[in-house]
């Protein structure tokens, strides 16, 4: 809103004094409707979710958010989001930690290091990876990745660094670690392709200047490329994080639908989105349905917070660079 007001009247009408042309009016009208429509849609979604969650809000109140229970059995119904909030946080943060270094490596390689003939095809491949539907990755996760992880990777990790409680005993093919790896594959190309484009925007003079001062290539990357693109990379990470948080289908298929809060990554888990996707259709009671919508409300608030955080970081980075919006 504020940015609209800041635009001067002259900027909106390129020829002051002349009557606005019909074409301009149509453009303004349709664009205006689209903008208002988007706002109305978001408003309706929030209102609908809030009203759908009301019975659960009434029954369980705020403690629903951290209670670790989900029992839909007739006569002993009890619901809480704690387990799924934990699962969402662990899988998304884990995926972000795994994906970021790899994605930055890919982006640096493609923007700074790779010879020209590799650049084009690999860039195209990375972007294709970003376009694979999540349900396909989820299926592949179940059929291919989960058995490999269960039979080879999980036991190897457990026997070598099993003293860390994160890598406890494993027996389930569908577990939190599988979910993290699947999410990593999904968000890696997002972070990589955005970071690559940001690295390309670093002015050539700055890079050449640094190299001219006799620094190594790595020192140039650390001293020039990262600081210049830092804010954007942070935003790319948060974008990837946002996708990991909201992802339902792929993780619903590979997490094993566990309940509880535990350190062992090789145990089963569940996320907010996964629980909703799996149980909404077959929900047997009004209270269960309402509790699932309550989960959606929590997910919505969580995503909005992540988005706001991303905007804040980008704006601060831009201001630091002296390009305040």
């Amino acid at each position: 809103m504020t940015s609209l007001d800041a635009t001067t009247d002259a900027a909106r009408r390129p020829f002051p004094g002349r009557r606005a042309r019909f074409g301009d009016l149509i453009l303004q009208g349709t664009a205006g409707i689209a903008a208002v429509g988007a706002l109305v849609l978001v408003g309706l979604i929030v209102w609908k979710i809030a009203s759908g969650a009301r019975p659960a809000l009434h029954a369980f109140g705020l403690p629903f958010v951290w209670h670790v229970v989900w029992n839909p059995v007739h006569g002993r119904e009890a619901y809480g989001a704690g387990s799924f909030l934990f699962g969402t946080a662990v899988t998304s943060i884990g995926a972000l930690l795994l994906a970021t270094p790899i994605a930055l490596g890919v982006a640096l390689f493609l923007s700074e290091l790779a010879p020209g003939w590799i650049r084009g095809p690999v860039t195209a491949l990375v972007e294709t990876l970003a376009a694979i539907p999540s349900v396909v990755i989820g299926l592949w996760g179940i059929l291919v990745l989960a058995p490999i992880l269960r039979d080879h990777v999980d036991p190897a990790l457990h026997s070598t660094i099993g003293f860390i409680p994160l890598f406890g005993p494993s027996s389930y093919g569908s577990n939190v670690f599988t979910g993290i790896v699947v999410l990593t594959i999904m968000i890696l190309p997002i972070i990589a392709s955005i970071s690559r484009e940001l690295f390309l925007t670093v002015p050539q003079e700055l890079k050449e200047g640094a190299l001219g001062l006799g620094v190594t290539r790595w020192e140039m990357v650390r001293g020039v490329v990262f600081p210049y693109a830092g804010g954007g990379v942070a935003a790319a990470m948060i974008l990837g994080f946002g996708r990991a948080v909201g992802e339902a289908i792929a993780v619903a298929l590979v997490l094993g639908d566990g309940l509880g809060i535990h350190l062992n990554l090789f145990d089963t888990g569940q996320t907010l989105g996964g629980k909703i996707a799996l149980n909404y259709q077959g929900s047997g009671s009004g209270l269960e349905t309402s509790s699932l919508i309550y989960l959606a409300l929590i997910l919505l608030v969580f995503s909005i917070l992540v988005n706001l955080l991303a905007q804040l970081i980008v704006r601060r980075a831009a201001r630091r660079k002296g390009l305040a919006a």
Partner: protein
Amino acid sequence: MPRNGKLVRVSLVAAAAAGVAVVAVVIAGTASAKTTAGSVNGAGSTFVAPLVAKWEAPVSSALGISLNYNPVGSGGGVSAITNKQADFGASDAPLSQFDPTCSSCVQIPWALAATGVIYNLGSLQHLNMTGQVLAKIFQGKITNWNSPAITKLNKGKSIPSKQITVVHRSDSSGTTYNFTDYLSHVSSGWKSSVGTGTSVSWPTGEGEAKSAGVAGGVRTTPGAIGYVDVYYAVHNHLGLFKMKNRSGNFVQPRAKGILAAASLDTHPAKDGSLSIVNPPKSKKFRNAYPICTYTYVDVQRSSGGNATNIKKVLSWAITMGQSFGPALIFEPLPKAVVAFDKKQIKKIHS
């Protein structure tokens, strides 16, 4: 000038909104026009969906009615019929299990099936199992295959020392209802700590979506145990337990065992529900498979203009329709149940 521009803009917005409204009305009009042309629309159980899918073509040719079924799950089916969004709702659990439920509905048992318990122990086939031991496994109290409780049932077979991985459904399901209903019947521990439902709070194990997910999880995990619609159990080439019934026999989930169990309860309760899990010890149930279930169709008593068509389709389903079942391991309804169903269908009016 600016004021004038604003006015034009506002009127444009209004015109566009009106346009959108007109389009919406036209779309809604065509959609509602479609339902009046001799069709019966249902939603619900995924368990019964393969059978209803088999019915669609013959219903269309025999009755001239197009039968449309949307497998959204039992809970979705009950809520669709409760809110009159469909002509019928199909559910694996009886209506009494739902809250809110459809108090103005008639409940009609329309298909008969069973749940198979599958396992992955390489080439070891046809192992024996009892309900009590099964309940302990699914509670996480028995965790190794060569536990004496299991080896005792399978003398002469060399069962390896292997960790048991429990696989269950992660979505809501009539199969889960049937399975947990059985465990609640045979184990008081299960009944008090977990209970019966289309989805429950599992004490242990890995959850997978749909029967295909459970079958896949068991297939790829050595030492796994799970439960699926008997059709999946038979067609997945996995180990399939012979379950001990109360007469002391170990029985496979095949036609003979299911039909024997079905004779347990052929006189539905007033609300139309029937329970046939775990038949008692008797000569009649010597060969009964203990994890069998009826699945139901629910219809509003006053179904409005489409009542005649709905009654035609249901009458066909409980008679002619049953012959399509055995290929999918749905066994034909016993005569007494068909007679009851006919009475129930008579209660439907416009």
